[in-house]
């Protein structure tokens, strides 16, 4: 029994390792892409992205957050800067939510593992939800 369990465990180990090895090229590509993205982004670019005013900033925020990726702490820092520079709460909320829920950069990786159709549908629905949450939260917080 102990030998059979060890064999099963070994097989589980190999199967899991094989899955990860298949995933590795896409993961490396995503990491390289994030590095390149990080190197071209600066403070002025963040503000320039929000060219629209009022409620359309929610769309800008969702779009901006969708295109970026990385540690959520970075999104908190950028979000705070955007708020201080006059971007609406709705726009910043949409930005914060879309940063972690959409993620265009990791779409290829998601498509490879879970299916491209799933990845695209989920990203689209999440993008729309980021806009909706941005609008709802800003109204709700405004009422409190």
């Amino acid at each position, binding site marked *: 029994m102990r030998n059979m369990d060890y064999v*099963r*465990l070994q097989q*589980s*180990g190999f199967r*899991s*390792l094989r*899955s*990860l090895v*298949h*995933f590795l*090229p*896409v*993961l*490396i*590509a*995503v*990491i*390289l*892409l*994030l*590095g*390149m993205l*990080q*190197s*071209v982004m600066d403070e002025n670019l963040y503000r320039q992205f929000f060219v629209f005013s009022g409620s359309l900033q929610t769309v800008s925020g969702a779009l901006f957050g969708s295109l970026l990726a990385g540690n*959520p*702490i970075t999104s*908190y820092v950028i*979000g*705070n800067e955007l*708020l201080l520079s006059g971007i609406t*709460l709705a726009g910043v*909320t949409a930005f*914060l*939510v879309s940063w*972690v*829920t959409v*993620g265009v950069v*990791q779409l*290829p*990786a*998601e*498509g*490879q*593992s*879970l299916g491209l*159709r*799933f990845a695209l*549908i*989920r990203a689209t*629905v*999440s993008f729309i*939800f980021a806009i*909706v*949450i941005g609008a*709802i*939260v800003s109204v*709700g*917080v405004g009422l*409190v």
Partner: protein
Amino acid sequence: MKRSSLFFFGLVLLSQIGYLVFAPVQAHEALQYSFRLGMRIAPIFAIVYLVMVFFDYVVDANYIKRHVGKTSGLKGAVIAAVFGILSSGPIYVWYPLLAELQKKGMKTGHIAIFLYNRAIKLPLLPLFISYFGIMYAIAVFVSVFLASLLNGYLVEQLMKVKL
């Protein structure tokens, strides 16, 4: 390995080489960032591997189907949401595990719920509150949690639509 994955990898690699040729200083910064990011996620990747081995060895398809499968309903949705909130690290390290769970019968909508609830980062909550305030934090995270359930439902339904 899918051809599209290799194509994507090749495309990014060529972009990186082009970046090194035309903007070496920025490209060097980019590579340093990528290296640091890779070092940061390596331990999480190792944890994901161990979790994958655990699921493959201990958890069979019937268990997955019963708890987070097509008939698991709201219970399965909440389980997926809770694990999404508890999961750490970048989203892309969890894709291989989710792919295995999907093969074993995890509902597509619940996978979407897991991924959406990763927006709720409990360890970062104090930092979020310090930047934006507690009322805003509560409003955002409650909205994200509720939206995740609807998100999962919509993704599930849209996946069924035949093109």
